[in-house]
């Protein structure tokens, strides 16, 4: 079992020095997701500007408790989506999801996923896929709530499926 394929330097670096950590204002939605298996949690806020095709991800801020994989994933995710158009950010999300659910059979596209390609090894560890997806799913959920016109009330705890 190739431990180093899982714990790539990039992952450990993000874990030790997470980017964009902490909860910030302004935001339009805040969600709280947990991994029911291990209890790992993330509280995540999303701030969008514009609407429809012009929407832009202005900020994603978070407070996460969890393992190296889940922490690093949150950090990498914020790097990838902040400042992007919502359309592009959703495409990156989709691409990351595909990578993670590919059981190691999907070749990651570095142009799209950048540092997130380091998670290719995680896809071979089914038990850890949920860790990698925790904050990505939270981001998707928060974003969907904003788009659906919901206001910034902290939501019920959701498990990441």
């Amino acid at each position: 079992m190739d431990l180093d394929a899982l714990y790539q330097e990039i992952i450990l670096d993000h874990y030790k020095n997470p980017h964009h950590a902490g909860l910030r204002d302004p935001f339009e939605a805040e969600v709280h997701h947990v991994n029911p298996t291990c209890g790992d949690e993330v509280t995540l806020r999303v701030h969008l500007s514009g609407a429809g095709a012009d929407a832009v991800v202005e900020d994603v801020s978070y407070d996460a408790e969890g393992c190296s994989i889940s922490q690093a994933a949150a950090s990498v995710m914020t790097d990838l989506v902040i400042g992007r158009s919502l359309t592009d950010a959703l495409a990156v999300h989709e691409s990351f999801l595909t990578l993670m659910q590919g059981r190691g059979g999907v070749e990651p596209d570095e142009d799209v996923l950048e540092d997130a390609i380091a998670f290719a090894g995680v896809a071979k560890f089914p038990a850890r896929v949920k860790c990698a997806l925790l904050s990505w799913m939270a981001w998707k959920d928060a974003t969907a709530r904003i788009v659906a016109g919901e206001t910034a009330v902290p939501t019920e705890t959701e498990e990441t499926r």
Partner: protein
Amino acid sequence: MTVETVHLPGLLDGLDVIRDDFPILSRTLADGHPLVYLDSANTSQKPQVVIDAMVDHLERHNANVARAMHQLGAESTAGFEGGRDKVAAFLNAPSREEVIFTKNASEAINLVANTLAWARGPLQVGEGDEVLVTEMEHHSNIVPWQLLTERTGARLRWFGITDDGLLDLSDIDELINERTKVVSLTWVSNMLGTVNPVAEIARRAHEVGAVVLLDAAQAVPQMPVDVQASGADFVVFTGHKVTGPTGIGVLWGRREVLEQLPPFLGGGEMIATVSMERSTYAGIPHRFEAGTPPIVEAVGLGAAVDYLAAIGMHNVRAHEEAITRYALEGLATVSGLTVLGPQQAEQRGGAISFEIEGIHPHDVSQVLDSRGIAVRAGHHCAKPAHKRFGVQSSTRMSSYLYTTPGEIDALVDGLEYTKKYFRAG
């Protein structure tokens, strides 16, 4: 039983080879009689591949699921969730998450009945509401609804049975009305063999906004079941009747409906987060699977539905029909014998209940048993249907994909012998 003299249209190809898959079928019983197992509606026999899958799991991959992240845990989870995938595919379920593992069909029905009592919103069953079942149900599809209606003040109503053993739909307009919240009926009767027009009833039920549960405990083993085409909201069946193990049943439910239901049992695996003050619950299917699930059983059930799928459920159905036709013909030669339920093989499943004038079913089955022939005697958990036909109990033969015409011959011979033994007829 290996050399078959009769060949019937529809019989499975290579029936001998199929029989070899089932170790128990080569068993010899008291006095050297070979086993003639005609009690498959009660429980089916298990092919080697199911037993082997379970043994392999226990000997090599056993661990708890989901929560265990080590290699064995991953293997065990893959086996367990693989069982869910296989069942979803077998039922043509739109999503694997709509497949919930229970302990048997009975629990699956109780799960629905209980959560409808605790639901808030349109699904809730309460005072003034009606729950509609039929007189031909297995007790497992009667008692949960009696408990529900008694406890909530709702009213239990039912379709009757015609003299031919079909559902009496003459009062359907009255029975399915705006107060009807649930319609729960059997797809195939375990006593009369009747195959019910479930899609049509589901359509009528949906017109008044009722949810529909199909007890497919006798349907899934015997015929192709497509939950989407069934028109139902819930379909339940049980592992041990589809060549799988005991200890596992299946509730399939439409996502939109399942997601509106509150939890059933509380415990590990069904939660999102727990504090002493309050808990939140997981999404489907886990919300309804409290505690350690039937892991090795899901592995076995997965192997079972794969086995059936490989044979092909259309072929299984054709085989059942051929054997049933042959059995109805054979039974018709036994004077004093009356078959309960539809008389045409096309209209029915492979369970045939009958009476023999002057001989109690216990006594019939006892004499048959002394010749190695296993049938069921009693009310087959369908007392109301027996009462409808004015009988206390009956004898039931039920075939499955491994049943041969020769076994039906042995039954008919055995019945003649039984009559002689008791000097009846």
